[in-house]
C-alpha cells in the first residue's frame, strides 16, 4: 500500500534534485526555468498526497491554481528570454549586468 511517507519522500528527493539543478545550471536561464518547473511539481506532489491522505480535496484545488500560475510564469519567462536573446544574442546569466545590480 502506498503511504503518505512514500509520496513525501519522493517529493523531497525531487525537490532536492531541482535545487541542485539550480546550482549546477546557474548560467543557463532556460534550464533555471525548467528547474523551477520541477520544483513546483515536487511541491504539487505534497499537495496532492496530503489532499488524498487527509481526505480533503482542497489540496487538489490548490494544485490547480499552482498549475495556472506556473503556466503563466513560464509563458512570461520564455517571452522575456526571447526578448533577451534578441537584445544580447546570449542567455548567459553572467552577462545580464545592464542594470548594474
Amino acid at each position, binding site marked *: 500500500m*502506498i503511504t503518505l511517507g512514500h509520496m513525501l519522500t519522493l517529493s*523531497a528527493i525531487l525537490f532536492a534534485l*531541482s535545487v541542485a539543478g539550480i546550482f549546477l545550471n546557474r548560467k543557463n536561464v532556460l534550464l533555471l526555468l525548467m528547474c523551477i518547473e*520541477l520544483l513546483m511539481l515536487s511541491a504539487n506532489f505534497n499537495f496532492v498526497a496530503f489532499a488524498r491522505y487527509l481526505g480533503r480535496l482542497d489540496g487538489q484545488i490548490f494544485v490547480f491554481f499552482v498549475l495556472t500560475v506556473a503556466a503563466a510564469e513560464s509563458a512570461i519567462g520564455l517571452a522575456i528570454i526571447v526578448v533577451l536573446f534578441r537584445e544580447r544574442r546570449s542567455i548567459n546569466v553572467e552577462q545580464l549586468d545592464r542594470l548594474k545590480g
Partner: protein
Amino acid sequence: MLPLILFYSFATVLVAAGLGVILSRNPVHSALSLVLCFFTSAVLWLLIEAEFLAIVLALVYVGAVMVLFLFVIMMLDIDLEELRRGFTRYAWLGALTAALVVLEVAGVVLTRKLGIDVTRGAAPLPEGYSNTRELGALLYGVYAYPLEIAAMLLLVAIVAAIALTLRHRQGLKVQNISRQVGARASERVRLVKMDAEDRK
C-alpha cells in the same frame, strides 16, 4: 502489492528523469526529460487516485508548456559550450543544499509531531466516487472567485507575453484596420457629371 511495485518503478523513472533534466548537456534533452518527469508524475497521481489533476498535468504541461519550452530552445541559437563552462564549480554547494533539504524533510516526516501518521494508507473511496465531479463542485462553488482571479491571471499572462515579444519593423507593409473600417464612399469615389463625348 501491485500498487507498491508500480509506485517504485515509476518513482525510479521519475528520479532518473529528474537527474536527466539537471545533468544533460543539451537543453533539448533536458526538456524531453522534463516531459518524462511530468508523464511519470501524472501516472503516480493516478495511482493515488487524483485522476483529474493527472490528466490536467499531462494535457496542460506536456501539451502546452513543454511544447513552448521546446519551441523557444530550438528557436534560440545558444552557445552551449559557454553555458556549460564551470558546470561543476558549485556542484558541491548544490549537493550540500540538496542533502540538507532531504534531511530537513526527512526530519519533519520522521519526528511524527505533525499529528499525522505517515505510515498509513489512504482511506478507500466510496463506490461511484468521481474525483472530477467533486473537484468541479468545489471549484465552481467554494472557490469560484479564486477561479476567476486565475482566469484573469492567464489573460494578463497572454497580454504580457504578446506585448513583450511584439516587434515593429520599419518599412513593413501592414493593414491599418481602423482606416479601412473608417473609409467613406465619399472619400474614395468622386462622381463627375459630364456630357457624353462623340467617338471620333
